[in-house]
């Protein structure tokens, strides 16, 4: 007895939880991904390069860059709409979603939340259209999970600031027009808006990656970078600044990872129905069905969690440890789903003809960046026990 198969999200009636406006925004991003990303993504991944400028402009005209920010040429959508856009982008590729996350939630958000009026006027409209690309430099080679130990410093010289140090693993680094760089000062950690043309600033692209190959990752070198007094972000001092930006980007990842998982699972379902072994579709074997059923449950639960967190965020009620719950669960489960889907595709699963191994490898980065799996576990552990276990 066979019936028309339904998608995992239809199984949960996810659409029922979305407004017509949210569905419309999702559909526009999905169409964009289908026509502008999918046809090229395997080649970009294979060659380890993306047409970043062109992509940024296309994403800008789509409206996803800083879409959840208000004013300065941004769209001012809800958090849920932003999450849904991240999901659709990451169904294309985590690298494309990373470009958008770093631009909107890290670089633009930092300027929007902590910048001066001049900094906002100067950068946000161009960044919203994708004419200017931004990056966000917090991590250093020796300080990843523990950014409070950072060595990059900014010292006063007359009215000017002079920055020295280096940043590692910086998404968009070598294609950026502006870098939001966090550095230690006499007063504590502060953010700086650094035009990448400034003398002494260099970005070296990191090659030989096996993950996020359709994303630019770089080392930033700051060698006596001299900036005027007004280059500092006036609105925040201390690690609270960068951490609040990370909270924004992590929120997008809570949804985004599910896109990679959904695309993997849908691919595996379709494949299992058409692939025959022992004279029947492999979807007809109970072992395959158990894999599919278990994955659909995790995907659907992850989506219910994401939407719940999104509604909390839109009501300004979300707490950082709740974002950790979402990031931890959804990155981890999405990676597990991609790996399981890979097995369903057999030999075909290891090629770029199918998106699955690409998503699987990408999600390894997503598990690590924006707070590792372990760090978010410890945040949740601290919330439950009141005891901080990471020091």
């Amino acid at each position, binding site marked *: 007895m066979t019936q028309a198969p339904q998608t995992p999200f239809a199984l949960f009636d996810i659409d029922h939880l979305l407004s017509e406006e949210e569905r419309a925004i999702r559909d526009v991003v999905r169409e964009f991904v289908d026509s502008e990303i999918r046809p090229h993504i395997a080649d970009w991944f294979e060659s380890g390069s993306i047409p970043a400028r062109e992509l940024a402009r296309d994403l800008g005209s789509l409206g996803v860059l800083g879409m959840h920010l208000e004013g300065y040429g941004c*769209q001012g959508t809800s958090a849920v709409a932003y999450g849904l856009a991240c999901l659709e982008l990451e169904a294309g590729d985590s690298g494309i979603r990373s470009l958008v996350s770093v631009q909107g939630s890290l670089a633009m958000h930092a300027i929007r939340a902590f910048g001066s009026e001049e900094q906002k006027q100067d950068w946000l409209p161009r960044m919203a259209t994708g004419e200017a690309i931004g990056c966000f430099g917090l991590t250093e080679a020796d300080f990843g999970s523990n950014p409070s130990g950072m060595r990059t410093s900014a010292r006063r010289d007359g009215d000017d600031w002079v920055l020295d140090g280096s940043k590692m693993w910086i998404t968009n680094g070598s294609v950026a027009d502006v870098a939001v760089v966090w550095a230690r000062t006499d007063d504590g950690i502060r953010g700086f808006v650094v035009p990448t043309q400034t003398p002494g600033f260099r970005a070296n692209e990191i090659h030989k990656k096996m993950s996020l190959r359709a994303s630019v990752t770089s080392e930033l070198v700051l060698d006596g970078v001299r900036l005027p007094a007004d280059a500092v972000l006036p609105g925040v001092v201390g690690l609270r600044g960068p951490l609040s930006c990370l909270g924004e980007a992590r929120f997008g990842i809570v949804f985004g990872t599910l896109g990679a998982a959904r695309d993997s699972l849908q691919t595996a379902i379709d494949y299992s129905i058409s692939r025959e072994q022992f004279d029947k579709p492999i979807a007809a074997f109970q072992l395959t069905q158990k894999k599919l059923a278990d994955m659909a449950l995790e995907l659907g639960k992850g989506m219910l969690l994401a939407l719940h967190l999104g509604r909390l965020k839109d009501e300004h009620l979300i707490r950082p440890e709740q974002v950790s719950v979402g990031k931890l669960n959804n990155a981890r489960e999405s990676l597990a789903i991609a790996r399981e889907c890979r097995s369903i595709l057999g030999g075909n699963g290891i090629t770029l003809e199918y998106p699955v191994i690409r998503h699987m490898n990408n999600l390894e980065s997503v598990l690590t960046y924006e707070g590792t799996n372990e760090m978010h576990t410890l945040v949740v552990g601290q919330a439950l026990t009141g005891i901080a276990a990471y020091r």
Partner: protein
Amino acid sequence: MKIAVCVKQVPDTWAEKALKAADSTLDRDAADGVMNELDEYAVEEALKLTEAHGGEVVVVTMGPERAGETVRKALSMGADSGVHLVDETLHGSDALATSYALAEVLKDRGFDLVMFGSESTDARMSVVPAMVAERLGIAQLTFAQKVEVSGPTVTIQRATETGYDTVEAQTPAVVSVVEKINEPRYPSFKGIMAAKKKPVETLSVSDAGLDAARLGLSAAWSQVEDFAARPPKAAGTIVVDEGDGGAKLAGFLAEQKFI
């Protein structure tokens, strides 16, 4: 310039379509509804014309409650307002009834142009634009691959099998478009959010002053007597090449009267 664009909600192009057993009409619940693809081109062209010449774009649809989504899609692309004719008695209307209803809604509203996609992906008749023009007693510029407006004169390139004809008329006129004409824009997020606040006039059959006896399945000029699902695809024929593959292929093609 005041332009009406008639849009239709159709089942998603890629979805498996089905008829309902009860009355042999299209099962609209069986698949997601989307704006008929060619209608997006018509909306795009109308927006371009008003961007160049000023004016407003009104989207008009006839269809069930759910077709309101299609009106909103056009509004999110940039149209200014909508008219939605929705009534139980419209269910099952054929092309004659549809053109009657649309023409009644369109007349007396002062449109310079009434635009359509040149066919819908569900019915595929391509007759409604011509019928509406006839009922309104205005010129029909159908199958346009290019539209130019200069004062009261509208000039189109009508796509033909061998090239195009240049056809001209005075406004008011009906224009139907083919997909070569443009590349429809994505709705912007601002557009999507603004669409909610744009006015949509909802009309019943009596609001629109229509004669219910001329509408719906019972008034249709043709009837579906019976239908059957397409038989499953037969297994293909595999020609094994044993040095004579070419001859075998040619033989097969000749047998099927392809050559």
